[in-house]
């Protein structure tokens, strides 16, 4: 089905270096996100997945390196040009990030109201369509605080697709949700991909959801890209860290390390 026909890259990251103060989080990263596919960015907690995502949407400027979105380097763009590119990008944040002071309907309608000159009645209809699509029909009037975690995520999806983006980013869609709700969100991603034919980039560490939605996998570890490829290639990979992820093996420490740790605990801390 998915023989790797060379698809066109919609995002290209070249030699990206990101550091907070002196700590290097992403160390000279190169990667390509193919158009029209679902790319899953895998990696352990705190390895810089969200940081990478923030850079891909131009929220932060990197230490060095280039990020080309549809051929334009967003690290060099001014605010106005970046804003124009972002209109065709949707983002679902890890904590949903709905605007808590306005209703769910207004959250979804906000980009339309601000970026287009559509009639209010048209905006209402489009809002309704998007909410139907994510399974939140009739929730326009609800405030975000009245929704459950899974529903908030769905509303965030509706807001992210309100401008019919070409690229949809999701940061850990299933974080903090029970497996049933999480599975529902995976189905939603599949459905959106089918219906809207977008490029989707999902950041996660959930293997189950990765197997379900990924066409293309990128794995980060220790600030480096340690794997890129398809699911088959991923399963066959001999990389130690990849195997550890697949087999859910915990971090292994040598006797010596454990001994050092134990000594540090008993002596230094008092």
């Amino acid at each position, binding site marked *: 089905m998915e023989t790797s026909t060379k698809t066109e890259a919609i995002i290209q990251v070249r030699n990206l270096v990101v550091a907070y103060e002196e700590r290097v989080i992403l160390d000279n990263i190169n990667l390509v996100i193919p158009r029209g596919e679902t790319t899953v960015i895998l990696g352990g907690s705190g390895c810089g997945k969200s940081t990478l995502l923030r850079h891909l*949407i131009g*929220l932060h400027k990197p230490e060095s390196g280039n990020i080309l979105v549809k051929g334009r380097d967003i690290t060099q763009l001014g605010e106005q040009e970046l804003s124009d590119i*972002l*209109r065709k990008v949707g*983002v679902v944040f890890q*904590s949903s*990030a709905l605007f*808590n002071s306005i209703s769910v309907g207004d959250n979804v309608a*906000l980009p339309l109201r601000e*970026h287009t000159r559509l009639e209010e009645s048209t905006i209402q209809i489009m809002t309704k369509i998007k909410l139907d699509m994510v399974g939140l029909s009739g929730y326009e009037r609800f405030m975000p605080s009245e929704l459950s975690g899974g529903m908030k995520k769905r509303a965030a999806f509706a807001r992210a697709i309100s401008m019919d983006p070409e690229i949809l980013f999701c940061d850990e869609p299933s974080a903090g949700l029970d497996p049933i709700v999480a599975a529902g969100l995976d189905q939603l991603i599949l459905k959106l991909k089918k219906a809207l034919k977008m490029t989707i980039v999902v950041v996660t560490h959930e293997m189950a959801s990765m197997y379900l939605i990924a066409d293309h996998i990128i794995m980060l570890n220790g600030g480096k890209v340690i794997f890129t490829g398809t699911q088959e290639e991923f399963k066959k990979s001999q990389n130690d860290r990849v195997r550890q992820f697949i087999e859910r093996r915990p971090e292994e420490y040598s006797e010596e390390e454990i001994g050092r740790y134990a000594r540090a605990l008993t002596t230094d801390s008092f």
Partner: protein
Amino acid sequence: MTENVSQRQGLFVQFFGWIGRLVLELFERVFFIYRLILDSLYWTFAAPLIGKGLRLGSAFDEMVKVGVNAVPIVGLISFSIGMILAMQSAYQLEQFGATIFTANLVAVAQTRELGPLMTAIIVAGRSGSGIAAEIGTMKVGEEIEALQSMGFNPIKFLVVPKLLALAVMVPCLTIISDFIGISGGISIAVFSLDLGFGRYLSATIFALVFKDIITGLIKSVVFAVLVGLTGCYMGFKVEGGAEGVGRRTTQSVVVSIFLIILADAFFTSLFYYLW
């Protein structure tokens, strides 16, 4: 011996490292404040002229929040302050048989000083902290990033409407405070000093000059902007979770009041010596 030297060198390096980080952090803060002020000016005055819009709707909502809703508490406090002022002045003036000058003291003190000052302090406590908490909560909940990811400028969306609302409403509240404070003075004059309503009122009107009211209002606009900028700065500086919001909210009130007093001293001396 060599160990001692290298240890001392280590301390040296640590010390200068510490100084260096402190200076860097200071620069970063100053730069952040500079950007905040510059961007706010741009999005308030320049951007609307080149058709980038001003969110008047939000500004109007904010006006209700910071202005209209604050009228009861500003009124209550101003009335009390007026009464206190009248009693304290009468206490001194009675000794010279000059109780009627209570009217002058209350009117001038209220319009030049206490009206603007008390109003600004109330607004700092009510709205400055509210602004810091609102923006801080949005920052913690990734809402600021969500705004940016939709191509919206947070300064335009969040800061400018609040600053506009404050700059318009704080002077209005100050005028209300002036009136009610003077009324508080009148109530004492009539009910306890036997001065008579008409006499006291005409003494008040005679005592006040245009300049008293204007200088008070100029100060109140400055206070308003200080409260707004401090609240926004603290909000954007929130890091971590809910306790970060709490800390910055408290700080916003303390710093606002400090800045208000500083600005008050500056402007009062300016008006005193130069006008």
